[in-house]
């Protein structure tokens, strides 16, 4: 289990190798990578700046990761989130979930992303070619994405 919040880019292959090195209990590794889109609402963007809440961010990511380990038999996991100014095409976030079998790894990776997006204190600001910049609004679809995990954890009786 590990979380990192840092400005520099990550190397997905190197992160997987580091996570699985010397391990023979892992049979499935699922990764998700989020990248910067070059347009928002049909308008091109020139950069995206990520602000965060130092201390709380790491604490929330660790809580989200611990929750995933409670729900699925994970062998290893990693969350890396970049901060600062990024360009279209740049990596933003990496989630890796490793387990003995694929279902746990697939589900945990999706859960980690849904929870991260709803709980981790990051805020995106997009700059446009005319020099204006605006904060990205939270999306209803992200709230819905995290709520389906609540339903699953508390089935109707």
């Amino acid at each position: 289990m590990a979380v990192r919040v840092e400005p520099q880019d990550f190397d997905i292959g190197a992160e997987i190798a580091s996570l699985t090195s010397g391990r023979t209990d892992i049979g499935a590794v699922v990764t998700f990578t989020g990248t910067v889109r070059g347009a928002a609402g049909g308008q091109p963007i020139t950069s995206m700046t990520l602000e965060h809440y130092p201390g709380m961010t790491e604490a929330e990511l660790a809580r989200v990761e611990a929750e995933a380990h409670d729900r699925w038999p994970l062998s290893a996991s990693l969350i890396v989130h970049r901060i600062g100014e990024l360009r279209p095409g740049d990596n933003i976030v990496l989630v890796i979930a490793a387990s003995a079998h694929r279902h746990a790894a697939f589900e945990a990776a999706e859960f980690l992303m849904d929870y991260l997006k709803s709980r981790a204190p990051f805020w995106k600001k997009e700059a446009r070619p005319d020099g204006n910049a605006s904060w990205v609004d939270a999306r209803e679809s992200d709230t819905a994405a995290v709520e389906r995990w609540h339903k699953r954890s508390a089935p109707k009786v």
Partner: protein
Amino acid sequence: MGVDEPDMTLGPDTSRNAPNGTEANRVTLRYFAWVREKVGHAEEEVSLPPEIATIADLVDWLRRRGDTYASAFARPEVVRAAIDQTHVRTDAALHGAREIAFFPPVTGG
């Protein structure tokens, strides 16, 4: 035990008591993203009046402090809060809080 020894008990920190005997509830307020931009600064230390018991009370109190705060909290339902780096709802009690943060809904990932 000498008077210079640090107080290791978990009782109230009497060093924070105001001269008149009422506890000056000193907290650090932190603001992020557009809440920070509208307030005009990222962080400040304030002494909370004793009647400020919850996040909602604090928001009402801040809104009366000036135009920048009134602007930042014009729609309090879209501002989120954390106490000591944990998400809380607006009815959360401030008792014992050291750091209270206000920010928009998060947009990471």
